[in-house]
């Protein structure tokens, strides 16, 4: 090949490359030469009329090379869902803090008399659910926000094992949440059936609006709202989680995407709600934690927050001043317990 031939060859190659580079934008004038690869990639992405593909690989959507809907979902998850979840999960503690600064804790004047409120099985079921829930919330939030919180802080190399560990732990503890949830539901549902007084309680904001403490039975309106939220969102969380744990059993990819949305939304709602539950059970209302730790509550606590239940206990003669000796015995052991079976 002489020098002229070489120059012509180079020129043709340059023109060809330039034409390919311009394929994404329609030509302004002249003859438009379509990219021969465009049809191929259009078919791969299955734009327009999806053409059925075949493969020997067995699995969900294994005959689909690029999932466009998946990309859209991923963008939505990163740009919308995670942002609003962060607003909610950061906002709720701020609201609780402001509430606490304005109202302070509800004080308790101990009466020295106790009422058995939760038996051993109630407490074990509650704390089992709480433990599993906190573990799942921690690992779940690590996976949800890790890319934005841990990676800039520790880097990708450090986040990689954290994410892997979180995923494995989350997947393994997930089914335990369902077991604990069902146990808690069965033990507490009879005491959480809705009543008109619960609506009144909620309308009065549990006494925050109007000043007067509204009447309540064994559980008040707020506690029942938490219970039914836990039941409904917890069930959604568990079922969607099981589907995500065993994706090969899902009938379609759309259902898996829906499961991801439901799982994330239900989890964020429950975690936000749990902040309020934890606050009310610890710093918000004095004497509440004791009920779930030792099983007993002070009589004044019961009269103040659950007056109808208190009256019922008094009518049934279950409220008695502890004999001094027994009080001392309880104090010595540190159990604060009258003994099991006094229901």
């Amino acid at each position: 090949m002489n020098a002229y031939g070489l120059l012509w060859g180079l020129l043709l190659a340059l023109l060809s490359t330039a034409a390919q580079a311009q394929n994404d934008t329609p030509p302004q004038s002249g003859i438009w030469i379509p990219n021969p690869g465009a049809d191929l990639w259009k078919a791969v992405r299955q734009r327009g009329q999806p053409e059925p593909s075949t493969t020997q690989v067995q699995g969900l959507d294994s005959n689909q090379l690029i999932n466009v809907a998946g990309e859209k979902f991923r963008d939505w998850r990163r740009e919308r869902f995670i942002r609003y979840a962060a607003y909610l999960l950061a906002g709720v503690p701020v609201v609780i803090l402001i509430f606490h600064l304005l109202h302070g804790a509800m004080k308790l004047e101990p009466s020295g008399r106790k009422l058995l409120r939760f038996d051993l099985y109630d407490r074990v079921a509650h704390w089992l659910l709480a433990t599993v829930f906190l573990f799942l919330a921690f690992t779940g939030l690590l996976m949800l926000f890790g890319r934005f919180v841990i990676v800039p802080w520790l880097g990708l190399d450090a986040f990689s094992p954290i994410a892997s560990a979180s995923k494995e732990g989350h997947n393994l503890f997930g089914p335990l949440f369902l077991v604990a949830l069902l146990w808690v539901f069965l033990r507490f549902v009879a005491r959480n059936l809705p009543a008109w007084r619960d609506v009144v309680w909620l309308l009065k904001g549990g006494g925050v609006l109007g000043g007067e403490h509204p009447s309540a039975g064994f559980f008040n309106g707020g506690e029942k709202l938490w219970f039914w939220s836990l039941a409904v969102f917890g069930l959604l969380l568990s079922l969607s989680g099981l589907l995500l744990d065993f994706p090969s059993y899902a009938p379609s990819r759309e259902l898996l995407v829906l499961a991801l949305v439901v799982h994330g939304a239900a989890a964020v709602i429950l975690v936000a709600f749990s902040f309020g539950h934890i606050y009310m059970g610890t710093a918000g209302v004095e004497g509440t934690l004791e009920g779930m730790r030792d099983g007993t509550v002070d009589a004044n606590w019961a009269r103040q927050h659950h007056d109808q239940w208190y009256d019922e206990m008094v009518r049934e003669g279950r409220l008695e001043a502890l004999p001094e000796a027994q009080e001392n015995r309880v104090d010595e052991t540190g159990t604060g317990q009258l003994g099991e079976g006094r229901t």
Partner: protein
Amino acid sequence: MTLAELVDGPLWTVALSVFVAGVAWRLLVLIGTGWKRDLSHPRSGSLGGAIRGVVGRFLPRQGMAGRLRLHLVAGYLFHLGLFALLFFAAPHVDFYRDRLFGFGWTPLPHWAFVLAAEAAFLGLMLLWLNRVLNPVTRLISESGDHAASVLTFLVMLTGCLALARSHETLRLLHFFVVELFMIYFPFSRLMHSFSFLLSRAAQGAHYGRRGVRV
């Protein structure tokens, strides 16, 4: 020497040595202690009593089953689950073959492994919650009981977190906690894994000789 080399090398040797020597020493002391010679006329055989003692205690006494329901269910869930994980989880079988015995055996399929892990975690959490929430068990529990529970939980948890077998850091973390567990084992309540047989047999033999049926 890097931390990984330390955990995989000398620390493992130390942990294994302490575990084997410690357990052997504790058992020898228990056996060597013996008991006071019983001069009474034997009413029945000691051997039968010992066997009855070992086997019979796997179920609670009549009348106690209701009160011990949580303990019983959680205890079996935990111990059977842990046994299955310890000896039949695929990573453990690989470890026994490559690092300890030179041979392996058929591991559990993945679904059975998951089931065993769920049972073990559920059982251990229930047992520990019962320990701290039941006023009686809380009263008789000591720091050693809680330490054994927490350490066992950490061993299981780190193992579960390393399940993907994709990160050396997670494997080393699990291995390190296992080594701490092995070093702590002979000097703690965890020794009941071995000593329960001796204590049940000794008490059963004593009762058997005296013709007591429990």
